[in-house]
């Protein structure tokens, strides 16, 4: 299994820089997720690792060996495409066995007629047939082996694509948004199957997605990307709990982290035109970030931030409540700020138009520099909230 090193990797299309100075190290057996919005360069990076796209700048190395100029097959990787990229005229069996047949293929098999005969023979060779059957069984595809991709459901095609990537026993698995074409239920099921697969094969997985739920549930490590640059590298917990900047704070989490533009002075925090409350050691020129589940919805007057509920989203196990902060001014009911989201467990009787007061624990607050958006380290802000 290779240890992958991406050293100052860059990619340009003409004068457009798609990836800028990408540095990362991927350990053996890691499940790395490249997470970011559409067009951030994550798929381009994955294709460069696979050898499907040229590397404009930098060095890509596997176990210390520079592989920039290696062909995809030399790199020994498996790639699962977003569209699955199955061979439509081949049966499931032929699709799964194709990499093994190609491994055993010799140049002279290209001679007409010989080609057909040899491919037929290779398909029936004991080791190839046995391996194909075993992988099909693992992924519950045995009953579908003689069908063609056109007659399979999305989930079945996905499993065939996985089986085809598994059959060669590669050291590195690259998956490019493989679940994005599936419905929500199937996506949840396949997510679990891919995680189980990773646990079983213990190989390195690099998985590209814009879906933060996929990233959080499967990854051992996440790289959040935006506009071709790394925003943060960390474990799912680090990414969620300690976002490196406001982009990560807003991109990861649904609803995203609440960011309040507050003024701080002498141990108090205030929202211009609205409430003020005590919060020791709050940094200056900072945005206050707090996750929806860390806000507490109290009866009116029983907390520092007065709000009115404007939207209630009942999800069954939890409820998302969207609030607006009340203004001090007589001519203005609400402050001109974003909705503040609160996540509460269960299905409480909360209706739009009701007034509440929000409170929080100071240790749950994350501060971000107003100018740069970068996170301000915890030590600067002491945990103490009035």
């Amino acid at each position, binding site marked *: 299994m290779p240890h992958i090193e991406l050293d100052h990797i860059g990619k340009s299309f003409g004068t457009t820089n798609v990836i800028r100075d990408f540095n990362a190290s991927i350990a053996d057996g890691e499940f790395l997720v490249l997470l970011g919005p559409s067009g951030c360069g994550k798929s381009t990076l994955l294709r460069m690792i696979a050898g499907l796209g040229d590397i404009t700048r930098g060095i890509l190395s596997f176990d210390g060996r520079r592989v920039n100029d290696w062909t995809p097959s030399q790199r020994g990787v498996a790639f699962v495409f977003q569209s699955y990229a199955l061979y439509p005229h081949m049966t499931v069996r032929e699709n799964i066995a194709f990499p093994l047949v190609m491994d055993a*293929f010799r140049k002279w098999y290209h001679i007409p007629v010989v080609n057909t005969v040899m491919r037929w023979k290779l398909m029936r060779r004991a080791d190839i047939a046995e391996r194909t059957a075993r992988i099909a069984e693992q992924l519950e595809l045995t009953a579908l082996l003689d069908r063609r991709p056109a007659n399979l459901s999305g989930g079945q095609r996905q499993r065939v694509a996985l089986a085809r990537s598994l059959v060669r026993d590669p050291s590195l698995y690259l998956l490019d948004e493989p679940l994005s074409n599936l419905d929500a239920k199937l996506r949840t099921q396949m997510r679990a199957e891919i995680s189980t697969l990773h646990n079983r094969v213990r190989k390195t997985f690099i998985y590209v997605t814009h879906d933060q739920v996929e990233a959080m549930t499967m990854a051992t490590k996440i790289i959040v990307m935006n506009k071709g640059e790394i925003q943060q590298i960390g474990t799912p917990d680090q990414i969620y709990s300690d976002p490196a900047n406001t982009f990560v704070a807003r991109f990861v989490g649904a609803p995203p982290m609440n960011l309040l533009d507050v003024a701080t002075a002498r141990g108090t925090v205030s929202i211009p035109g609205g409430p003020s409350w005590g919060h020791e050691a709050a940094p200056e020129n900072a945005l206050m970030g707090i996750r929806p589940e860390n806000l507490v919805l109290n009866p009116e007057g029983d907390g520092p931030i007065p709000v009115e509920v404007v939207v209630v989203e009942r999800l069954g196990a939890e409820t998302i409540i969207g609030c607006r902060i009340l203004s001090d001014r007589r001519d203005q009911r609400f402050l001109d700020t974003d909705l503040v989201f609160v996540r509460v467990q269960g299905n409480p009787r909360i209706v739009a138009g009701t007034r509440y007061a929000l409170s929080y624990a100071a240790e749950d607050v994350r501060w971000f520099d107003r100018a740069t958006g970068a996170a301000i380290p915890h030590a600067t802000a002491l945990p103490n909230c009035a």
Partner: protein
Amino acid sequence: MTDLLLQADAKTPVARSARGGIRWRGMLPYVFIVPPVLYLAVFMFYPLGRQIWLSFTRTRLMNPNRSEFTGLSNYERLFADPEFYMALQVTVVYSALAVILGVTVGMIAALALNRPFPGRAIVRAVLLFGWACPNVAASLVWLWIFNERSGVLNTIVTGLGLDRIAWLTTTEMALPSILLVTVWQVAPFVMLVMLAALQSVPEEVKEAARIDNADSLSVFRAVTLPHVMPTLQLVSLLVAVWSIRRFDIIYLLTGGGPIGSTSTLIVKLRQIAFENYDLGLASAYGVIGLILALTVAVIHALFNRRRQKRSQQ
């Protein structure tokens, strides 16, 4: 609903227009179908029916309206004539080679043009010239190229220190020469159609094959060829049918000679109809040509059906 509209129809002009709308909508498919049906009836089905009928009659060109029904006598004469078998053989060989060579050359050109290189648009335009050029004009140009004394080909041949070649006047060279012109004319069409098909091959599937350790030829065999196969089959059918009924190039270049070595069924048909004035026998030749073209179409349909069946597995 219609009843309500009909009741209202008697009273209000709005409803009358609504009923008119319903009538018009019912007629609309026929309005669209009638022109092509009329066209096919007048220019295809009637002449075809007339040809089949004429093949069972004794009809002279000088008096085509006086036909005498003779049953299968024209076919008896035709099957007893060694020249018919010669024409049939020439037609089959010419059509088969036109398909094999025309489609192969066109496919290779399409594959070459499917890769980006500087000046690709110019090369494509130049290659299309053969297809765009009118047949008669092209044939006259090729007559000059094949000219034994002053033709370009023989200038090259003698420049290489070889003897002049009688391209169109020897039985060995006439058919290959005609095939050369045919390929020159057919290949650009094949190239154009196949280029469109090649550009629709999903890039991701080709990349998947490359990841799976397939070399370029294997990618072509495993991904590209199966994807473009329906188009390739259709183009082959078209080229085959066009070759069976090709007249202008052959007639202008060799007139069917020398000694019938390039006389296809259609060239023979012209000779019997307009030199021997025997419309009945000429029609029988036409019917055999029709059967040949239909056989090719049926083979294509069978391949198509087989492919569809396999894809439904």
